[in-house]
């Protein structure tokens, strides 16, 4: 049961249960064993809670080390506690629900007998006997919550119910035991046990359904936690050994057969297979993988058998990171919630004051019997007020919204990002690696220059150089020796090959070298969206090499979808204008920001923001972190297994560009749900509290029966939670 908010990843603290402890001496033994592990700075063991707390360096110590240390002295460390605590939690919740259900049945049955019996002259004394267990056994939880709350000078829903039902019960008990006293003041001694019992029954019935519905809002996270594999088949000394997942350590070799779950993250050593990663990344088509490829824990191996080396275990796996991110997002607060927060802190005391006010006004100015009117209306005010609906309006929708996102491979960092995303009117796509695959290829070679270009580029670290060298290898050219190699930033490269001075780069380099170029040919290639590099030998033009990055298949459709939503799509790139325009035209983007250096991307984001635009930036999260952070919403495209989850406000681990539109749609639908919830929760209280106070009595002679008030109250929070659950059905 430990949550951490640690900033240095290497400096960790972990609390985990220990099994097999029976005396105080065990404490010292385990503490010593844990302290002896290299990298552990402190270890304390608590006999009462049977838990160990260890502070350690995450780079030096693994869960396996801690488990082995505890095992070496004869005890067992339960490091796989997430699964256990989830099960425990579920059991406890079920137990609570069962108890609640029986309480609802008892109160409604006894209340029903009182209501029906009332028509047939059931004696008030019998009614009192039937009402006592409802008031003090079923209703005990209202008192148990009210008394400590009053000690703390706070109040909540339970306080209102406790006061309301106690007033009705106390009055009824009084007229039952001492009817002559009320008769004397001219009031018919009629008990209201039906009110006290049915209110308790209905409110608890509401809570029962609300609890059931609320469980549905966190289904997504439970499903993600449930994806974790329980065991792994580790290859040890040539034999397969089944180990609990908590004992799998980095570096272990694991065998996976067809149809099995891949236990932890790793890289394939031998074999190949098709892997269904949909449950974790949301990517629907199985991916073919072979030697060297990385695999993700909790995904399903479809066809072949393979062995792989574990590279990430425990809390470091992709699944664990996703779970952590979703949990954090679900705990964060959306700015729209602020007003509800403010109101809820004053709500209950104000309702109590309104209830007293109602009593006084009805008693002084109401018709006879004034006391009865005053009491019943006061009880109605106390019972109808529903602060829970306001409290539940935003968080339940955020929980469902972030959960749906996670299931579709859209990870939302916090509620604020989810809220902001629906206001986005401009989206900037980084070209390389986002709209395109980010792997340029050589498309044209003009003149016999490939050998010279490839030889020269072998020494370069530029991203385009790799494409040219690869082309040279493909064509099996002989790489020549280069001397006096020099990279000229922003221009290209130069060197001496075979005694000839060779320069290779852009126009600027040619101007510098005073080499005349064939502008027409270059333009033609650039108009096709290619980046052209020019090769000059001994001061004369020798040829051209054109390189192009291929567009992703989904780019055009994704851009089109966003434009249809009324969002302006902008492409940003370091390419020259003509090349950039040509690529943008292919995907249907009209506005292009070309020749932008990587560190200037953030400036362009700010420029658009200063024009009053709400800007989202879509990038790969690797070299555009400042732009992602500067944008109103930074959307990072995950690169499959190695996801920089922290890079953006929203991370698309499914690598699907269409998810940008889906994320914005999800934000719009979630916000619509929240607004409807808040409108309902506020509207309900604003309209029905005055009705309960009797505002409609003068014009229409309408008063709200306290039993109806309790039914409305129960329905109001259920409807808010159910509305949030409807979000699950929304198409995004």
């Amino acid at each position, binding site marked *: 049961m430990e949550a951490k908010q640690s900033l240095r990843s290497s400096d960790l603290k972990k609390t985990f249960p220990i099994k097999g402890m029976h005396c105080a001496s065990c404490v010292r033994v385990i503490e010593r064993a844990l302290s002896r592990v290299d990298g552990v700075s402190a270890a304390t063991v608590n006999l009462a809670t049977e838990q160990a707390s260890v502070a350690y360096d995450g780079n030096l110590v693994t869960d396996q080390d801690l488990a082995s240390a505890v095992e070496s002295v004869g005890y067992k460390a339960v490091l796989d506690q997430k699964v256990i605590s989830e099960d425990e939690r579920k059991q406890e919740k079920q137990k609570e629900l069962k108890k609640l259900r029986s309480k609802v049945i008892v109160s409604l049955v006894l209340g029903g007998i009182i209501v029906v019996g009332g028509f047939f002259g059931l004696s008030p004394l019998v009614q009192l006997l039937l009402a006592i267990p409802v008031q003090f056994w079923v209703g005990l939880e209202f008192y148990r919550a009210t008394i400590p*709350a009053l000690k*703390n000078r*706070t109040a*909540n829903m339970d306080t209102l119910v406790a006061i309301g039902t106690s007033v009705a019960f106390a009055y009824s008990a009084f007229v039952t035991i001492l009817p002559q006293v009320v008769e004397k003041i001219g009031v018919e001694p009629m008990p209201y046990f039906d009110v006290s019992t049915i209110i308790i029954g209905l409110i608890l019935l509401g809570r029962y359904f609300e609890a059931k519905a609320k469980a549905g809002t966190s289904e997504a996270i439970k499903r993600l936690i449930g994806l974790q594999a329980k065991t792994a088949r580790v290859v040890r000394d040539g034999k397969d050994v089944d180990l609990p997942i908590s004992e799998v350590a980095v570096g272990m070799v694991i065998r996976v057969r067809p149809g099995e779950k891949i236990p932890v993250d790793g890289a394939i050593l031998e074999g190949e297979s098709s892997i269904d990663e949909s449950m974790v990344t949301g990517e629907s088509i199985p991916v073919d993988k072979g030697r060297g490829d990385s695999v993700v824990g909790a995904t399903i191996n479809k066809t072949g058998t393979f062995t792989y080396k574990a590279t990430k275990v425990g809390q470091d796996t992709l699944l664990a990171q996703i779970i952590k991110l979703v949990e954090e997002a679900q705990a964060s607060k959306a700015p729209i919630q602020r007003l509800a927060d403010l109101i809820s802190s004053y709500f209950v*005391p104000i309702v109590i004051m309104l209830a007293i*006010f109602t009593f006084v006004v009805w008693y002084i100015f109401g018709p006879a019997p004034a006391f009865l009117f005053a009491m019943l209306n006061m009880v109605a005010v106390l019972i109808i007020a529903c*602060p829970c609906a306001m409290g539940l309006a935003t968080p339940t929708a955020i929980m469902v919204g972030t959960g749906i996102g996670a299931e579709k491979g859209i990870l939302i960092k916090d509620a604020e990002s989810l809220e902001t995303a629906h206001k986005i009117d401009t989206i900037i796509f980084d070209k390389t690696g986002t709209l395109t695959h980010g792997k340029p290829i050589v498309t044209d070679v003009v003149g016999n220059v490939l050998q010279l270009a490839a030889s020269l580029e072998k020494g370069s670290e530029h991203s385009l150089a790799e494409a040219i060298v690869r082309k040279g290898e493909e064509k099996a050219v002989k790489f020549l020796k280069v001397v006096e190699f020099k990279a000229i930033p922003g221009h290209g490269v130069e060197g001496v090959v075979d005694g000839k001075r060779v320069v290779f780069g852009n126009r600027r380099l040619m101007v510098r070298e005073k080499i005349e170029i064939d502008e027409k040919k270059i333009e033609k290639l650039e108009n096709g969206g290619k980046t052209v590099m020019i090769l000059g030998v001994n001061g004369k033009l020798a040829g051209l090499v054109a390189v192009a990055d291929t567009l992703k298949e989904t780019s055009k459709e994704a851009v089109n979808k966003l434009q249809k939503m009324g969002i302006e799509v902008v492409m940003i790139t370091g390419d020259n204008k003509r090349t950039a325009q040509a690529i943008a035209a292919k995907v249907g983007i009209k506005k292009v920001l070309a020749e932008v250096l990587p560190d200037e991307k953030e400036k362009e984001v700010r420029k658009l923001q200063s024009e009053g635009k709400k800007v989202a930036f879509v990038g790969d999260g690797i070299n555009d972190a400042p732009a992602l952070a500067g944008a109103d919403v930074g959307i990072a495209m995950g690169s499959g297994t190695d996801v920089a989850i922290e890079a953006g406000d929203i991370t698309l681990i499914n690598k699907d560009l269409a998810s940008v539109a889906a994320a914005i749609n999800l934000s719009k639908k979630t916000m619509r749900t929240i607004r409807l919830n808040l409108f309902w929760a506020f509207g309900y209280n604003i309209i029905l509290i005055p009705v309960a106070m009797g505002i409609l009595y003068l014009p229409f002679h309408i008063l709200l029966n306290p039993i109806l008030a309790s039914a409305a109250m129960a329905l109001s929070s259920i409807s808010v939670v159910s509305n949030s659950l409807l979000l699950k059905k929304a198409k995004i």
Partner: protein
Amino acid sequence: MSSDKILVGIFGLLGILFTYWFFLMKKEKQINVVSEVDITVSGGYSPEVISIPKGKPTKINFLRTDPSDCLSEVVLSDFKIRKELPMNKKVSIEVIPQKPGEYKFTCGMNMYHGKIVVK
């Protein structure tokens, strides 16, 4: 106006004033925490306001003894933490706040409030 009505009027007014004073004019008692604090969750949070140092890990142990469903979760939204609080089981949360200020924590339905003051 009859005397009982005058009495009800006076007591009603006093009741309203008392309710205002009792719930809304409560003085916050702040507890200074060095590295660890136990907060009892029963009809609210006790202690309700804790003061913790900036940049240092502080362990907050919640122990719920109140069956109210409202209190079955604690939310520290500024730290992005939402934790279930099973009855009579200690749940520890560790925070390392980086900025001074006031951070609220609430129950799952935002009815009960507590505050972490970071200095």
